[in-house]
């Protein structure tokens, strides 16, 4: 290692930096993947594919730019190209997806989050991803626009439509789970929000 020419040494250390940053992003890639495809196993496959694509493309990553946004863009593109290939299959999987959007193995997870999951799952893909990126992923509208390959104004309107639709779905409580009416999901979300944000 120590005897290698300076260019190779630098590139090896750049690779190491890249890898460290990529590893730190894995949890976020998993969360984004799960929000896109629902099923946790399929989501991890997607996140792994995206991670490998990012690794293979590391030479084209511009150091100093937002690597999280860059990897999310790769993951998103991967998701849509796979989805195009397996459109029929994804329709069949819809029932599974409806139950597993961002599903976590946490029996103590508040009920109302399930309603939120269902409300999210009912959104068109482009509204859901915009809302997840801005509302949960911590991206600015400009970054979300870059990730989704659309105009900033488009992201803003998607997020706002998504928010209205989610709110309407929660207020009407029109979703049924296990055959029972969901009830006042918005009320539960509100009280959960108070509880969850209490320690901030």
């Amino acid at each position, binding site marked *: 290692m120590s005897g290698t020419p300076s260019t190779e040494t630098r590139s090896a250390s750049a690779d190491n930096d890249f890898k460290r940053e990529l590893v730190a992003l894995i949890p976020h890639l998993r969360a984004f993947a799960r929000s896109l495809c629902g099923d946790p196993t399929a989501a991890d496959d997607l996140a792994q594919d995206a991670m490998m694509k990012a690794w293979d493309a590391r030479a084209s990553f511009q150091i100093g730019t937002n690597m999280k946004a860059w990897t999310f863009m790769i993951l998103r593109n991967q998701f849509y190209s796979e989805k195009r290939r397996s459109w029929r299959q994804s329709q069949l999987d819809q029932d599974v997806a409806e139950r597993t959007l961002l599903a*976590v193995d946490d029996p103590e997870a508040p009920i109302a989050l399930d309603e939120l999951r269902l409300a999210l799952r009912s959104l068109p893909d482009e509204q859901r991803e915009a809302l997840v990126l801005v509302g949960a992923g911590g991206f600015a509208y400009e970054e979300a626009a870059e990730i989704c390959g659309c105009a900033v104004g488009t992201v803003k309107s998607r997020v706002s439509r998504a928010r209205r639709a989610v709110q309407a779905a929660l207020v009407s409580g029109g979703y049924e789970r296990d055959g029972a009416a969901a009830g006042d999901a918005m009320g539960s979300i509100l009280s959960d929000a108070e509880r969850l944000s209490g320690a901030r």
Partner: protein
Amino acid sequence: MIDRKLQPRSGKPRPAEGPRSEGEEARLRQQAIGVGLRHMFDQVVNEPVPDEFLDILRNADLAGKEAGE
């Protein structure tokens, strides 16, 4: 590491009971949806990363090094 901010905080002031303006109501609802969204996302972020991820990356790194040198 794991998000442990679920304890209720008794000191948090509750909004006064009574009619809220429609705008205020909508703002609170959106805020609540935002908290819920972040919580759902963070739950996954806080899960331990399956070993597979690191194994795949390590193998790719090794394969690349062998091929390159």
